[in-house]
């Protein structure tokens, strides 16, 4: 099952084949961890953009990302607390974090318009990959109804961000 998740994310080279070894579908504690990690990664990317970019549209977009993902992750934390689920670190989360750190370093070397374009392009690709992972893997694998429902709302948020990022990208050309 993890193979299809990987296929989606590998498309933007976020996931190395090393993370895809296990065949089992993710458990709820793992899904919670992956979803939360995906939010944290996007917040870190946005904070980098806020620090580096001088473009009004790009900064506004980054602010939207911080605001939304912080709100969703707070809701996710409230839910896991309520359900008494302890988010469990796993290879997918670890690989996501590792690759995101690499992307931050890569973008960190760019400046000005070059940075803006690369950041927004990565936001489109990243949200696309997470959408696909949510749709094909995380939502179908979730057992708890409330977790599933939160992931479904999360999917709509990520799809919205993807379209928003596409609009910002179009404006940069």
């Amino acid at each position, binding site marked *: 099952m993890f193979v299809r998740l990987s296929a989606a994310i590998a498309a933007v080279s976020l996931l190395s084949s090393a993370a895809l070894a296990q065949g089992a579908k993710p458990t709820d504690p793992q899904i919670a961890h992956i979803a939360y990690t995906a939010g944290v990664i996007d917040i870190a990317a946005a904070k980098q953009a806020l620090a580096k970019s001088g473009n009004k549209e790009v900064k506004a977009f980054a602010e*939207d990302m911080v*605001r*939304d993902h912080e*709100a*969703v992750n*707070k*809701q996710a934390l409230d839910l896991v607390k309520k359900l008494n689920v302890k988010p469990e670190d796993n290879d997918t989360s670890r690989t996501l974090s590792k690759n995101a750190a690499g992307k931050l370093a890569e973008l960190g070397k760019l400046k000005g318009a070059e940075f803006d374009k690369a950041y927004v392009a990565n936001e489109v690709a990243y949200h696309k990959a997470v959408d696909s992972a949510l749709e094909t893997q995380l939502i179908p694998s979730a057992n708890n109804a409330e977790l599933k429902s939160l992931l*479904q*709302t999360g999917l*709509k*948020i990520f*799809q*919205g*961000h993807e*379209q*928003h990022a596409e*609009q910002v990208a179009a404006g940069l050309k």
Partner: protein
Amino acid sequence: MAPRWVLPIVAALMLAMSVSADAATVQITMENLVISPAEASAKVGDTIEWINKDILAHTATARNGDWEVTMPPKKTVTSVVNKAGTVEYYCRFHPNMKATLVIAP
């Protein structure tokens, strides 16, 4: 005879009453990134009550540029429609949220 200033006040009150009697309030809700109703109807002068039930901020942004309303998380914001027409609008933060407001003259 009533003091001179009474008449304009009475007139203003009557006018206000006649306006509020005509104008309706239309509720549009945003919940789980869905706008409902997907197509709402109103008349010029009506108040739209934009109810945001999400933990996220949303906007109702007219595609034709006529208006934009921003709703903080879990808040209700009102606006008055003052121009007739069929307006398609969306949320700028989540452009997958789309709906139509038909405003009759």
